[in-house]
C-alpha cells in the first residue's frame, strides 16, 4: 500500500490563479458580500475563457475599489468616481481589450454619476459592475444615493429623508444595452450574468446587492451578514425582462431582481469609425475651383 505523505505545499484554491494571493486575506469585513461578488467575477472570467492579456479591470474608491488590487490582471485603482472615464480612455486606446469596471454605489453613481450616464448614452463597450451595499461603507457608513428611505446612517440619524435611485432604471433610461440586478446570494445567476455582460458589445450594467454588516447592517438592526443574506433571500423575486421602471427595491415587501434589458445598439467605437469613414470619403459634389477667381 502506498502511503501518501502530507504535502508541504499550502492548499491551492481554484481561483488562486486570478488572485494576488500575497495580498490575501483582504481588507473586507467578515461577512461582507464584496468578496462573494469578487469570486463571481473571477468565476465568470474563468468560465468565459477570454485572453487574460486582453482583459483589464478598473475600479474607483471605496471598499469595492480594492477589488482591482486583488486581481491578477492589468488593473487600475482610479480616483474617486473616475473609474468610468479611465475605462473609457483605456477602451478607446485599446479597442481589443475587454474592460471591466467594478465600483460601489457611492463611487459609481454619486460622485461618478455624470460619467456613468454619459458612458451609457455613448454606449461605450464596458462591463460595469456596481456593488450596492446601500451606504458609503469605507468612510463610515454615510448616506449614499442608494440608501433606502428612512434608513439610519451617521449623516441621517433620524432616518434618510431622500428617495433612493433605481440604478437599473437609470442605466436603462440612459441607453445601457444590458441591465441586470442580482444579490450576493444569487451567485450562479450572477456569474452567468457577468459572463453574458462581458460578451455583450456595449455598455452593460450589473447591480449586485450585498450585505454591509459593519456599517449599514449594524445601524439599521439588520443583524449579522448571514441575517441580511437571509433577508435578501426571502424578499427577492426574480422578474426577468420587466421594465426596469417597475423593478423596485421595496425592502418592506419585495426586492425585484433579474435581467431587465438585453438589446443591441451600435457602440461608440462603431459610430466613431463610421463617422470618420464618411468624413474621409471624397464628397460626391464637383470640386470647387481653388484659389481666387480672376477679376
Amino acid at each position: 500500500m502506498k502511503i501518501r505523505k502530507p504535502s508541504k505545499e499550502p492548499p491551492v484554491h481554484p481561483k488562486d490563479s486570478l488572485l494576488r494571493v500575497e495580498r490575501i486575506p483582504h481588507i473586507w469585513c467578515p461577512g461582507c458580500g464584496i468578496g462573494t461578488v469578487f469570486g463571481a467575477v473571477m468565476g465568470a472570467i474563468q468560465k468565459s475563457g477570454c485572453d487574460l492579456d486582453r482583459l483589464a479591470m478598473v475600479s474607483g474608491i471605496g471598499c469595492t475599489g480594492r477589488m482591482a488590487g486583488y486581481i491578477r490582471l492589468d488593473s487600475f485603482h482610479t480616483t474617486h468616481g473616475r473609474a468610468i472615464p479611465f475605462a473609457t480612455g483605456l477602451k478607446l486606446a485599446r479597442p481589443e481589450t475587454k474592460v471591466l469596471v467594478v465600483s460601489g454605489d457611492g463611487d459609481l453613481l454619486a460622485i461618478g454619476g455624470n460619467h456613468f450616464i454619459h458612458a451609457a448614452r455613448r454606449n461605450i463597450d464596458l462591463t460595469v459592475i456596481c456593488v450596492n451595499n446601500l451606504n458609503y461603507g469605507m468612510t463610515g457608513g454615510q448616506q449614499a444615493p442608494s440608501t433606502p428611505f428612512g434608513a439610519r446612517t451617521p449623516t441621517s440619524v433620524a432616518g434618510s429623508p431622500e428617495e433612493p435611485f433605481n440604478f437599473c432604471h437609470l442605466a436603462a433610461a440612459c441607453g445601457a444595452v444590458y441591465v441586470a440586478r442580482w444579490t450576493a446570494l444569487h451567485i450562479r445567476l450572477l456569474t452567468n450574468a457577468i459572463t453574458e455582460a462581458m460578451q455583450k458589445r456595449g455598455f452593460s450594467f450589473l447591480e449586485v446587492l450585498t450585505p454591509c454588516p459593519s456599517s449599514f447592517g449594524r445601524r439599521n438592526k439588520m443583524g449579522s451578514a448571514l441575517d441580511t443574506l437571509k433577508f435578501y433571500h426571502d424578499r427577492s423575486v426574480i422578474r426577468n425582462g420587466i421594465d426596469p421602471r417597475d423593478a423596485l427595491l421595496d425592502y418592506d415587501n419585495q426586492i425585484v431582481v433579474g435581467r431587465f434589458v438585453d438589446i443591441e445598439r451600435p457602440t461608440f467605437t462603431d459610430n466613431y469609425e463610421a463617422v470618420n469613414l464618411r468624413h474621409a470619403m471624397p464628397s460626391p459634389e464637383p470640386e470647387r475651383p481653388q484659389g481666387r477667381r480672376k477679376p
Partner: protein
Amino acid sequence: MKYWRKPLDEAAAGKSRGEIVVIVDRCKGCGFCIAYCPRGVLRLSSGFNKKGYHPPEVVNAPKCAACHFCEALCPEFAIYVVEPDTKT
C-alpha cells in the same frame, strides 16, 4: 442519497462526491458556507485560526455532493471542493 425511484443508469453514472478543503487561516468565520450547504456537511468548529476566528469543519464528509456552492459563496476564498477522479 435516497432516490424516489432507482435511476436506470445508476451503475454507469455514479454519484458525484466531493472532498471539502478549508484553508483555515483565510477564514473570517462569517458562516455563509455552513448556513447554505444544502446537505449540512459543515459545522462551526470550536477551535480558532491564526486570526482568532472559528473556521468551519467537515462533520458529514460522505454527504458532500460536490455542488461547489460553499466555494462560490465564500467571500474569503477559504473553502473549495475537490472531486476525486473515481466516482463511487
